[in-house]
């Protein structure tokens, strides 16, 4: 600090008293605005979604199988809940092991320069906007999947097992599987970063003790490192799961956007964010708009629960069971 800043005389009381009051007031107002935003997020979806909830009932809305904005104006969110559940659970299942493997590779096996390079790369990929991943998915990934995976399986099914066809669905390339794989690619960097943070926090003594007992490198990782970091790894995966639930653009670009159950494996489907993105701009009917807002409310509740779960696990599964914290 500059020596000139030191006051020569005691400061006038008004300067510190009033200054502190004004400063704290400004800070409180700014902080309150965040609280209002979060509350507003819940409030807006409840108020604007109220018309739909009143019409169908909350349980009726989330279990309604039909989403028909055209003729009957019946709105049920089940197709989108189902689509979101399948894509997010599927992507987490696909992403978890490889993501943890990369983190282990970076912090345990790779030479420092290589580890740093991969770490930077993973962080950079995490920063790639989801529309950019989406355009690659639309023009490169989905057509490639159709030619090399979906069509061969589909043709095999036509000849050998036609009863599978309705389950497999129309192999146009844009559908549930494509969206799930892209989602998995998108959450891998996220899980890797959080896993690496957790692994880096494992004390050196913990490893050295295991080595001293004669453990091989893999045994050290499996018995000393991973168990210690398990809280961070699990919480990171749940946060990534939350990401997958809310991920909008890449999914909307790849899932094919079909609003009616039943969905098939390769065929088009929809998720909660994708239906909001696709229909909100064009919705004119007020019940339709309100139903989309009500889907926003469901999305809000699910995201809230996922985040609370992650926070709880971080606290609970940390070594010491959160007692020291």
């Amino acid at each position: 600090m500059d020596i000139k800043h030191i006051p020569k005389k005691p400061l006038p009381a008004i300067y510190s008293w009033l200054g502190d009051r004004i400063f704290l007031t400004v800070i409180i107002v700014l902080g309150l605005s965040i609280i209002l935003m979060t509350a507003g997020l819940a409030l807006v979806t409840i108020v604007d979604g109220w018309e739909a909830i009143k019409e169908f009932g909350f349980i009726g809305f989330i279990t309604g199988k039909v989403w028909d904005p055209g003729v009957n104006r019946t709105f049920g969110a089940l197709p989108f809940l189902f689509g979101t559940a399948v894509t997010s659970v599927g992507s987490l299942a696909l992403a978890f092991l490889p993501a943890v493997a990369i983190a282990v590779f970076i912090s345990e096996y790779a030479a420092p320069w290589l580890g740093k390079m991969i770490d930077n790369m993973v962080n950079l990929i995490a920063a790639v906007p989801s529309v950019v991943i989406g355009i690659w998915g639309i023009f490169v990934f989905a057509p490639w999947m159709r030619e090399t995976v979906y069509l061969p399986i589909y043709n095999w099914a036509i000849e050998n097992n036609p009863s599978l066809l309705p389950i497999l669905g129309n192999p146009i390339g844009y559908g549930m599987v494509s969206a799930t794989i892209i989602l998995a690619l998108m959450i891998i960097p996220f899980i890797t970063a959080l896993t690496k943070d957790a692994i880096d926090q494992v004390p050196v003594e913990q490893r050295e003790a295991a080595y001293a007992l004669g453990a091989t490198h893999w045994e050290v990782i499996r018995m000393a490192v991973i168990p210690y970091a398990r809280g961070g790894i699990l919480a990171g995966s749940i946060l990534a799961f939350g990401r997958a639930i809310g991920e909008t653009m890449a999914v909307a670009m790849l899932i094919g956007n079909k609003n009616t159950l039943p969905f098939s494996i390769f065929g088009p489907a929809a998720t909660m964010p994708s239906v909001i993105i696709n229909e909100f701009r064009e919705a004119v009917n007020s019940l339709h708009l309100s139903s989309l807002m009500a889907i926003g409310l469901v999305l809000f509740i699910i995201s809230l629960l996922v985040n609370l779960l992650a926070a709880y696990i971080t606290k609970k599964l940390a070594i010491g069971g959160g007692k020291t914290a």
Partner: protein
Amino acid sequence: MWEQVKARKSLRQRSINDKIMVALITLSTILVLTPLVIIIGYVVVNGIGALNYDFFTEELGSPTRAMRGQPTGLVHTILGTAVVDLLSLIIAAPIGIGAGIMLSEYPEHKLNPLLRVMNDTLNGMPAILKGLLAFTLIVRPMGTFSGLAGGVALAIVMIPIIARSTESALSNIPWSIREAGLAIGLPRWRVILSTVVPAAKSGMVTGFLIAFARAVGEAAPLLFTSFGNNYLPNHWTGFIFGPVDTLPQRLYSLAISPYKEWHSMGWGAGIVLLGFVIVLFSASRFLYRKRK
């Protein structure tokens, strides 16, 4: 656990297992990193191929313009992105910094724990919901989609990230510095503004860049706030009070359009967007390393 392992497996078996796991982990690292690198490669190659002089100087216009081979570009999109992103930065910076100061400097304040919970909740919400909030707060009362609404939506994306990173930058400054300031008779607000914040400046800027990089790529909240526009507005105020084009939202519209010419412009928008994010990302890394 340890005795069981030793009893069950020979030394030879264990060292084989060790080698197998090294191979498996290395293999899956390569397997996963390859497609991720391929994505970036595709965007760079296709994107640079789509860039030309017109891309940066012409407006998009109707699809027929592109199909007839007349010059089209995304100048209105690039300008619109600059305006909306700048607006969001102006809105988000004071709120995020203020909340960060509250979280780190007033741990005894009653508002502190509530603010922390609410900020983390906001951070965990999908960006599309923040767009819905901005739609209801700004678009509906104004009666029109606008750049301002887009800026607010992106600001809501950035605010919780800035608040958290400001907090962690500030709380890295040792308490003894604050005590030194208080001991020479400075009021608390002067201590914060003249000693703590300047010392934490580079950490705060790093957090800013990360939040900004995140908001710049968001398309979901912009689709129903700034909406999009194929032309430049007639007057510069149209960037703030009228529908505005932005890169991520335009990239989406181009990619799902049925016109081949627009698809290639989509790749162009992709490389511009990616380039911008990479610049922000590298700047934040550079600052972070310098701080260390």
